[in-house]
């Protein structure tokens, strides 16, 4: 166990080195990502500037929501997205079989040997934006509030990682999974807006089967003392429990799928 744990940072470091081999391209890519997120943010700014509030959320509150979403997503996705997106190909080509013979958990090997430094741009922008949003938003500062903020951010990252992992793991059974990521990103785009602006059916979906409401909309609404539809007073504890719950579900599903893995045939 201890030996495995010692290997993981080394795997991550190896991948980081390989990515930084093309240093110019690496940083150009990060700058492009920051510009793109900034443009999405500018869209929200134009809306808030023109209309004052969106569904009762003012500009600074929307900025906090956006930055919370970006930071939570980058933390969760660096541990899951690009790695799990490759799983389909690994199943199809049979390279996953080689992984299964290694004396290490295939999940741990995949995740840490592909721990994506590409999310640095997201994370930096998220942190800067969050610091700025927190300085202008009306926040009831207290130790409890800060503790809830941090815990719900970790929970949001866990929800993101769990959902992205569960999508990838379906490739172990169905051999194809990448088409489901377009479904994920359809909902992902919605999850950076207050959840109360959507029709009830979409709200219910985003709080259950596709739990991306917990990525930002629910925890930030709780933090700002805003009402959360459907969940009501349960929104606070639900935002904290969503992360561990969906991670447990993803772990169970991963084991279930791996037990039934038979290769892509041929």
């Amino acid at each position, binding site marked *: 166990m201890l030996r495995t744990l010692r290997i993981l940072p080394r795997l991550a470091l190896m991948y980081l080195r390989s990515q930084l081999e093309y240093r110019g391209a690496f940083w150009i890519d990060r700058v492009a990502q920051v510009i*793109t997120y900034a443009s999405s943010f500018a869209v929200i700014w134009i*809306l808030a500037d023109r209309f004052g509030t*969106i569904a009762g959320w003012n500009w600074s509150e929307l900025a906090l929501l956006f930055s919370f979403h970006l930071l939570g997503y980058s933390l969760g996705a660096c541990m899951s997205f690009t790695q799990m997106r490759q799983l389909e190909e690994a199943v199809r080509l049979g390279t996953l079989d080689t992984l299964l013979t290694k004396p290490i958990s295939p999940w741990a090997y995949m995740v840490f040997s592909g721990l994506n430094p590409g999310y640095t741009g997201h994370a930096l922008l998220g942190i800067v934006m969050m610091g700025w949003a927190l300085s202008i938003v009306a926040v009831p500062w207290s130790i409890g509030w800060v503790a809830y903020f941090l815990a719900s951010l970790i929970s949001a990252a866990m929800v993101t990682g769990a959902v992205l992992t569960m999508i990838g793991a379906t490739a172990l059974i169905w051999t194809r999974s990448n*088409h489901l990521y377009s*479904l994920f990103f359809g*909902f992902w785009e919605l999850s950076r807006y207050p959840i109360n*602006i959507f029709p009830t059916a*979409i709200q219910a979906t985003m709080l259950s089967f596709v739990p991306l409401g917990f990525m930002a909309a629910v925890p930030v609404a709780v933090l700002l003392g805003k009402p959360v539809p459907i969940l009501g007073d349960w929104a606070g504890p639900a935002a904290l429990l969503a992360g561990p719950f969906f991670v447990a579900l993803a772990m169970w599903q991963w084991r279930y799928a791996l037990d039934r893995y038979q290769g892509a045939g041929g």
Partner: protein
Amino acid sequence: MSVYFAFARSAFLTQLAYRHEVWANMIGKLVQVFARVAIWVAIYGGTASIAGVSLEQMVTYALLGGAVTGAIRYESIISGIGQALRTGDVAVWLLKPASFPLYVLATELGRAAFRFVILVVPTVAVVAAVYGMLPPASPFHGVMFVAYGLLAYTIIALLSALFGLVAFWLLTSFSLEWMMQAILNLLSGQLIPFWFFPAPVAVIAAHLPFAWIVYYPSAVWLGRLDVTATLSYFGLGLGWAALLAVGVVLLWRQASTRIVVQGG
């Protein structure tokens, strides 16, 4: 020309083979369109009209906005060029009696035609049935919308090819895909029509080629431009398309003389 039509046709038919993807994309698209409309409904929040634009007009704009960008995938064109560069396939293309940029554009337009029929039309119809959608302002505007729509496909395809060809110098197409996304977010009118932009920015954005991708087709449908303006801006759009086409030809000539196949 028939060669490129065959590429487009083959790309159209290939899409039929991936039925799971069609379903997932359709639901994803439906959610996205519903959401964009829901955002405008929330913004209007019971107000009948903002800046002379009614909620019905805004919902129609949001629905039409997805007609072009929902069908064509600029990232496929950019990454298609990037991948050919990385794998070295581009060198093989130089030996073939067909143009590589035209091949990439033809295949993506074939896929776009498939997505337009299978994804865009049904999702727009479903959301329109729920929220309502205005007809074109007049038969003239309806006809011109089709012309503007075709021009929009031409412009986004040429722009994507231009971005993709820059990969020959940068040796990475990833950042170019993201940059194109940033431009589409802000300057195509895809998420916010220019009439809600701060005044000086709106004037500049309305004259850049990106405006013809979403803003003008939808504005024409809604009758925001009179007959003269509709025709003159169409002429201006054609000018941009011609300029972009020249840009693609020149850049491809430059690029094909400096191909460095990596590895081998």
